[in-house]
């Protein structure tokens, strides 16, 4: 009874706080000053048609580096916890013939689409995080189709670390080579507006983020599947 009272009290308090926001809400008809600057000057300053990407990778590049770091820490902790708690892996039922054939056909296509999404992050919607998640979902599909197949995560770990390090190195290169500071995208030429090899460093950084996020999420999924068992079985 007391517990229920506390819950209701908590809910009521939270509701009254949120109610204030709902009542005070007015639709903004004009962009705030900073956003207006990004929208008006972003394409000219950075050469990327997709304004979201230019904000994520360049204007707020440091935040993105922080995000990637958080993801890295989370994946590392998940890996550590699951590794400590290694259950014996039983034989799993294989996927049906339909699922196996379908995943064999779709796997390369999904990987290709994920690569397309992060390579074209500066031109079309999407980018490193989305592309990486799509690549990881291809891996989930292949795990569903053949759960007993072993997947080595040494290569994934190396890829993850390499892309993390090169992200920081590219950011530092911006700080050392130009006056504009850390993660400046103009250490490469801006190129022709709207083409694949344009917008300076943005496609390079987004590809790195794509590889990093893809390998990180994949190793989380592989870890959850409970198959890092070469040591466990010995």
């Amino acid at each position, binding site marked *: 009874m007391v517990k229920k009272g506390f819950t209701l009290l908590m809910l009521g308090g939270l509701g009254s706080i949120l109610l204030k926001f709902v009542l005070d809400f007015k639709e903004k008809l004009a962009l705030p000053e900073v956003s207006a600057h990004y929208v008006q000057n972003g394409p000219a300053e950075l050469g990327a048609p997709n304004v*979201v*990407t230019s904000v994520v990778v360049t204007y707020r590049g440091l935040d993105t580096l922080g995000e990637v770091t958080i993801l890295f820490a989370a994946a590392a902790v998940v890996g550590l916890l699951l590794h400590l708690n290694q*259950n014996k892996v039983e034989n799993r039922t294989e996927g049906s013939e339909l699922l196996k054939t379908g995943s064999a056909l779709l796997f390369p296509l999904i990987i290709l689409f994920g690569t397309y*999404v992060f390579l074209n992050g500066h031109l079309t*919607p999407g980018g490193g995080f989305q592309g990486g*998640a*799509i690549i990881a*979902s291809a891996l989930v599909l292949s795990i569903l189709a053949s759960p007993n197949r072993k997947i080595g995560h040494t290569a994934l770990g190396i890829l993850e670390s390499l892309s993390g390090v090169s992200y920081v190195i590219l950011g530092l290169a911006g700080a050392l080579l130009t006056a504009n500071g850390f993660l400046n995208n103009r250490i490469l030429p801006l190129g022709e507006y709207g083409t694949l090899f344009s917008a300076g460093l943005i496609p390079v950084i987004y590809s790195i983020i794509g590889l990093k996020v893809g390998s990180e999420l994949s190793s989380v*999924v592989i870890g*959850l599947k409970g198959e890092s068992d070469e040591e466990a079985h010995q």
Partner: protein
Amino acid sequence: MEFIFLVIAVFTVVTALLAVLTKDRTVSILAAGASGLFGSILFIIMAAPDVAMTEAAIGSGLTTFIFFFALKKIRSRDNG
């Protein structure tokens, strides 16, 4: 457009409520994934394709699978 938006918004809320209220864990996970999928359609209608892609890939795709893996781990521990 307004009508489609409202219908999908209602679906989002209903599947979210189902995810919280149902007793069956499998149904709950699937409903949470469906809620994320409807949410991502809402993002597309609101002209935010970048967010929609993230929501579809992570919110309704990977999270669902991770929940299922976790559920399986819990079950195998309960039994053994």
